[in-house]
């Protein structure tokens, strides 16, 4: 057990211990107000250890440390092992997860309180599930065995269900939690099928390292590998909320806002991106799968950006924004055969990394707004909060600017890398090169839309005349330090982490690019690496788009206040506000037939019930019919014996 592995195991143990300790606290009422301590300690210590882990992995010559395998279960040729792998990809994810989780936990300890600053009723439950979630997410990135990965995958799904349904007494929250679980379950089915197919194709291996080695040496037929990759991608589509399985993410805003920040911005939804990145050696061998990934990402990005244009709920805008940005990450991943996988994967992972910071920041800031406004988050009901919430306003501005991709902020650098990889993919000799060009244009349009809707939300919330809704009461003041400090920290990250990590130092790409599975993928494809020089063209275009979007938003919403839609755009506006009627379509096509089937099944069940009751009544009836023979009269018994004897004798005597 080498040092990185022991560090990884320590982090996992700390998080699991925090989960157990917090859960045990639910027994004692006196301990309730300390429920946030175990997770903050565990995540904080975990973040420190993760940073040490990153340095250790960076220093290692062979940056892959596999720990295990201990056989979980085995049946015939199928073995599932407890196997962990620590490599740069996992290490950077670990660091990001624990760091952001720490600050979100600190924010939550201030957020999850009622008007009198007493902890909420489910305070302990909240932190217990949140620590369990962080544990499962860390296990997911560390898992080296598909079955173990699926276990943690389901674990994060479960915790998401529990946290989205935190306010379970509210029917809409319970329904949203169910929707999240069931829709991701659809993707998980494909995921499991893909694992089984890969097990068969990959020489009966379920360990990722062994599987990739085997497939690299004995590549299976392309159609079968494409099928396996597409099935794996199903899981990613479900978990990372891509079209057509994105419908759960906007509804998941029913949960507490820090939950949205952690789960639906930074960590759980990125699990799909992480999966595809980790399975780069497989995707690199299948051009059709790459095209599907890219197109799915592109369609999702544009669709979600379109819907976000007209939403009234601040959190919903951010939710659709997350879906759109995840689409960007898949756009980058789709090019990993056309461009060197190192570049493509690094682009996706870098955007994931920066997105985690600014999106978590945006969600937390909107949480701060919601907390100050007494639970109201409808942008039509408040306005001009610059003066009421100064810190929140400034941090929100940092996050919005990063999201829009204004120059030199972190979002700018990561979005540019994605556009670059699309451009290089379009110029290469890939069979789908033409579509990459089209997708690049789509991405640019989406970037413009992103800037527009982000600053629409910003202006509607913070600019214009100050309007505070009645529910705010005496709440309409800045949040306490326990909530603003994490905002500031994340704002600093949103502003600077991009420029520090990549463009000049190439520290990020150098670190992540050494991941053995990505190196293996690069070997398999043979595409040339992209030259690491600054692409002025892409940078210029994206700057123009971002600034243009911000300016348009300022022109339309600079004065804040009620939204006025120009008449020619009213139809488009309604379409956007009604989310393109996708939910209604799903309801009609899938939900109603399923309900109808359930009704028919109930009728059939009732019929079977009555049938079985009728059959059960038969012995009773037969008994009731035969019972009077036993009437207690001896002579009657003797008579029946005599009659039976007569019948029997007549048979014997008259036998022919």
């Amino acid at each position, binding site marked *: 057990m080498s040092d990185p592995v022991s560090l990884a195991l320590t982090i996992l143990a700390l998080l699991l211990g925090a989960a157990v300790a917090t859960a045990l606290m639910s027994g004692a009422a006196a301990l309730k107000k300390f429920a946030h301590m175990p997770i903050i300690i565990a995540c904080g210590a975990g973040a420190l250890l993760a940073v040490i882990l990153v340095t250790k992995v960076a220093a290692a010559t062979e940056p892959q440390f596999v720990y295990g395998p201990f056989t979980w279960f085995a049946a015939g040729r199928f073995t599932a092992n407890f196997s962990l792998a620590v490599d740069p990809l996992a290490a950077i994810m670990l660091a990001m997860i624990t760091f952001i989780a720490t600050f979100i936990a600190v924010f939550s300890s201030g957020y999850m309180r009622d008007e009198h600053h007493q902890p909420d009723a489910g305070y302990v439950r909240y932190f217990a599930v949140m620590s369990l979630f962080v544990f499962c997410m860390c296990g997911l990135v560390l898992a080296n065995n598909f079955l173990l990965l699926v276990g943690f995958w389901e674990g994060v799904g479960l915790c998401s269900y529990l946290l989205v349904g935190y306010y379970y007494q509210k029917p809409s929250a319970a329904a949203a939690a169910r929707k999240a679980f069931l829709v991701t379950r659809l993707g998980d089915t494909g995921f499991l099928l893909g694992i089984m197919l890969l097990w068969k194709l990959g020489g009966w291996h379920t360990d990722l390292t062994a599987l990739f080695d085997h497939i690299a040496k004995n590549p299976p037929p392309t159609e079968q590998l494409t099928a396996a990759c597409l099935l794996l991608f199903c899981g990613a589509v479900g978990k990372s909320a891509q079209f057509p399985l994105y419908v759960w993410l906007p509804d998941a805003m029913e949960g507490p806002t820090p939950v949205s920040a952690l789960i639906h911005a930074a960590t759980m939804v990125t699990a799909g991106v992480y999966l595809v990145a980790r399975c780069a050696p497989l995707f690199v061998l299948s051009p059709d799968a790459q095209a599907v990934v890219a197109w799915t990402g592109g369609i999702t990005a544009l669709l979600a950006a379109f819907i976000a244009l007209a939403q009234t709920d601040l959190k919903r805008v951010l939710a659709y924004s997350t879906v759109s940005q995840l689409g960007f990450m898949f756009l980058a991943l789709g090019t990993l055969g056309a461009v060197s996988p190192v570049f493509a994967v690094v682009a996706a992972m870098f955007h994931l990394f920066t997105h985690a910071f600014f999106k978590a920041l945006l969600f937390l800031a909107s949480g701060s707004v919601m907390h100050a406004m007494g639970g109201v988050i409808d942008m039509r009901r408040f306005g001009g909060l610059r003066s009421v919430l100064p810190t929140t306003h400034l941090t929100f501005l940092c996050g919005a600017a990063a999201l829009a991709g204004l120059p030199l902020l972190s979002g700018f650098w990561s979005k540019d890398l994605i556009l670059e990889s699309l451009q290089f993919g379009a110029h290469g000799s890939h069979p789908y090169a033409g579509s990459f060009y089209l997708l690049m244009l789509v991405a640019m349009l989406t970037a413009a839309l992103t800037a527009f809707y982000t600053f629409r939300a910003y202006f509607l919330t913070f600019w214009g005349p100050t309007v505070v809704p009645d529910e705010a009461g005496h709440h309409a003041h800045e949040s306490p330090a326990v909530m603003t400090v994490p905002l500031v920290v994340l704002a600093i990250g949103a502003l600077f982490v991009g420029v520090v990590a990549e463009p000049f130092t190439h520290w990020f790409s150098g670190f992540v690019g050494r991941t053995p599975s990505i190196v293996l993928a690069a070997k398999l494809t043979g595409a040339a690496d992209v030259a690491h020089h600054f692409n002025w063209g892409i940078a210029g275009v994206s700057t123009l788009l971002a600034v243009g979007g911000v300016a348009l938003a300022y022109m339309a919403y600079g004065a804040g206040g009620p939204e006025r839609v120009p008449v020619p755009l009213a139809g488009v506006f309604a379409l956007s506000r009604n989310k393109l009627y996708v939910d209604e379509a799903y309801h009609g096509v899938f939900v109603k037939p399923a309900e109808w089937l359930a009704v028919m099944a109930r009728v059939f069940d009732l019929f079977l019930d009555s049938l079985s009751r009728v059959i059960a009544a038969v012995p009773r009836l037969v008994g009731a019919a035969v019972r009077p023979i036993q009437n207690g009269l001896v002579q*009657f018994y003797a*008579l029946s014996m005599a009659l039976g004897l*007569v019948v029997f004798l007549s048979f014997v*005597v008259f036998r022919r």
Partner: protein
Amino acid sequence: MTLLAVPPPSAAGQLALAAGLAAVGAFLLLPKPGLRSVAGGVAGLVAGLAVAAAWVVTTFGGPVANTVETALFGLFAAGALGFGVVLVTQRNPARGAIAFAFVILSVCGLFLLLAAPFLMAATVIIYAGAIIVTFLFVLMLSQNDGPSDENDRTREPLLGSLAGFAFVGLVLFALGQSHAGAAPLPAQAITPAEQATLRAAAADLKALEDDRFYVVPAAGGTPSPERVALLSRTEQAVEDVVGVSPRKNDGTPRDGPVADRLAARSDLHAKGVLDRVAAAREQSALAFRFAETAVNDPPRGRPAEAKAEATKLREQLLLLAGVGELPARNVANLGVLLYAHHLLAVELAGTLLLVATIGTVAIAHRRGTAA
């Protein structure tokens, strides 16, 4: 009468008719608060009995006219059945018990006709003497006056009569089928002709037991031709039945008609008879050899042995002739059978009687002193 040609009724039809009539009659005669008619009942029963008797006569052979046996059988049988009906249909149970006593007497008459005098006496003593008296005592102690449920009602009169008489009809039908040759009864071991021959031979052998048969004639005299003829005649008669033994000096050995007839049978009775025939065969060879020597060759003859052997032969012949007849000394033979062949059953019956006595006293014992 060709238009009304009625096919002769089959046995099943006749018996069904008889059973039906008797059932209706019994139904009408049984005491019940509803339909009760003595005349109708008696008529039905008599009609049924007549049809059944006609069927019995036609199937099993008619009675020979003016034979005492037939008359007595008819008397006793009618008595048994008649008093049985009285017992079943009489309202008053005391009168029924008296009818039962008469049934016993009739049945004992039948026993007498079947050569079972001891059983006749035993049945009269035990049943008519002990059992019926005990019943009458109990009846008198527990009888209530006037109409009562147990005496004036019957349970399922129609179905009960039908069941009983249907059963009788079926049994009679089965008897008829057996009689018709489906399973013929085994033939008699010794035919009456052979019986007569053996009895005559036994009568003749009596002469051989007399000393005067072996009187030696004066010197030089020939044996009396009558004695020689008697001897040869008797010997011939015996050999005609039991066969010739290989021990006889002249004459081919043969088994005799009885042994031939019984050779295929394997039952004990036939085996017993075969053994007896074989013994008689040997004995006859021996006895006649002695007798011939004593008659034809007086100096070498031994009259005493001849007499003894002749006596033995005569007894054997009489026993053979009596095969198929019951022994005259009924009680003695019953005793021999009981104590020689069925000793275990006797002991068990005794134990059963003891236990029953004790059980009866125990059951009927009244606990406590209250009256």
